[in-house]
């Protein structure tokens, strides 16, 4: 069997993809006890940074390390970036201790995005669990900015407890102002809590949307998404209109290090937003 080997090295990108751009912290906002949002502005004035909802950046804290964090801000604002993360390790803990004026390295934006601009005229169902609301907030901004293009927009959000609900004020504002149906549930209530108690899946079963004309966007712990997907399929939402954001270990975010592989897909470039029918064979399989 004869195989031709090409030795030509293609021209194109020459900038080193491993070198971060420098950004300046302008604010670290405590959202809940262990979750915070860091606001960044480019170190060089007049630099614009644009991204699509669902994409992420690699954020570098000097001498400590680099982690992938979803961009959680308003994509129409290109002069400033927001990232919401939990304190889960050395890098995120160090990041949470940064103050206005400190510098952070930024590489990105990377990955696939929530494809809502192509889905005008449909209902949009958003199912978020815990910190999973962070990569979905940019798509909410986008939808609110183009509200008239979509029919019903429904957000179903599960949090651990009432104290751990993210973006409370924003959700209330959107609910009031933009005809956004918001249903929040908590795993564990409090004495003052008068809302839903329980997981988010029963909310999926009864949310007001038209399954045959809906695009569903999900982000949260994989088990939560699995059960939510079951409910969506029971209601007849097609797998090619269901999108999930997945997470895997990432070191380089540019497809070189191999860590984020999920079957034949790289979460850093074929994801993190995946269409359900494309991952149906592997989603939910153990240890792949």
């Amino acid at each position, binding site marked *: 069997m004869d195989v031709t080997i090409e030795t030509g090295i293609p021209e194109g990108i020459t900038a080193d993809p491993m070198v971060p751009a420098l950004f300046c912290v302008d604010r670290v906002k405590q959202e809940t006890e*262990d979750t915070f949002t860091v606001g960044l502005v480019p170190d060089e004035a007049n630099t614009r940074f644009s991204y699509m909802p669902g994409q992420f950046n690699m954020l570098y804290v000097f001498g400590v390390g680099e982690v992938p964090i979803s961009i959680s801000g308003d994509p129409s604002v290109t002069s400033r970036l927001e990232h919401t993360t*939990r304190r*889960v390790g050395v890098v995120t803990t160090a990041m949470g201790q940064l103050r206005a004026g400190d510098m952070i390295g930024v590489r990105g934006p990377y990955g696939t995005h929530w494809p809502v601009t192509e889905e005008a005229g449909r209902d949009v169902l958003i199912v978020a*669990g*815990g*910190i999973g609301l962070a990569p979905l907030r940019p798509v909410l901004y986008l939808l609110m900015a183009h509200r008239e293009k979509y029919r019903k927009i429904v957000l179903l959000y*599960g*949090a*651990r407890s009432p104290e*751990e609900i993210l973006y409370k004020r924003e959700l209330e504002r959107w609910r009031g102002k933009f005809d956004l149906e918001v249903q929040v*549930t908590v*795993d*564990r*209530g409090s*004495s003052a*809590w*008068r*809302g*839903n*108690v*329980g*997981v988010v*899946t*029963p909310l999926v*079963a*009864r949310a007001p949307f038209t399954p045959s004309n809906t695009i569903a966007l999900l982000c*949260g*712990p994989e*088990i*939560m998404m699995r*059960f939510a997907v079951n409910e969506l399929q029971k209601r007849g939402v097609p797998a090619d209109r269901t999108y999930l954001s997945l997470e895997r270990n990432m070191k380089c975010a540019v497809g070189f290090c191999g860590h984020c592989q999920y079957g034949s897909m790289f979460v850093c470039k074929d994801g993190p937003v995946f269409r359900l029918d494309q991952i149906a064979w592997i989603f939910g399989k153990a240890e792949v």
Partner: protein
Amino acid sequence: MIHTLEPIIKEHPFFAQLPEKHLEFITGCAKNVQFPERQVIFREGDPANEFYFLREGLVAVELLVPSRGPTTVQTVAEGEILGWSWVSPPYRWHFGARTLQRTRALVFDAKCLRAKCEEDHDLGYEILSRFVGVISARLDATRLQLLDLYGRHD
């Protein structure tokens, strides 16, 4: 009364595909009922002779925890079935239920239904298999709740 309730009952997925004669009987056991917010619907330990289909509103399923007071373990919302303690002895509520909002519901006379199910096992099967579905969904949700998926697990 029977004429206004039957379409509502028939439409709901819980009663879908129930044979006509059973549907008639069930409808006969049903009544409209309303509760203001913060109203106790039933108390833990009381005799369980009803079940509810919530048409509007939100109900907290609660347990009285010493030093914590009434603690909500789950909520049941519109379109859902509330209450299955009527199915098996000792026919007493395992939990309490209290409205969180103004709630409208259909209440079903379970004592009467129990007796009829004893007589007519076909009806019994139809009812019990539907309740198994409700209980299993509630159990799935409870197990997910127990996993504390949004908590830190290092």
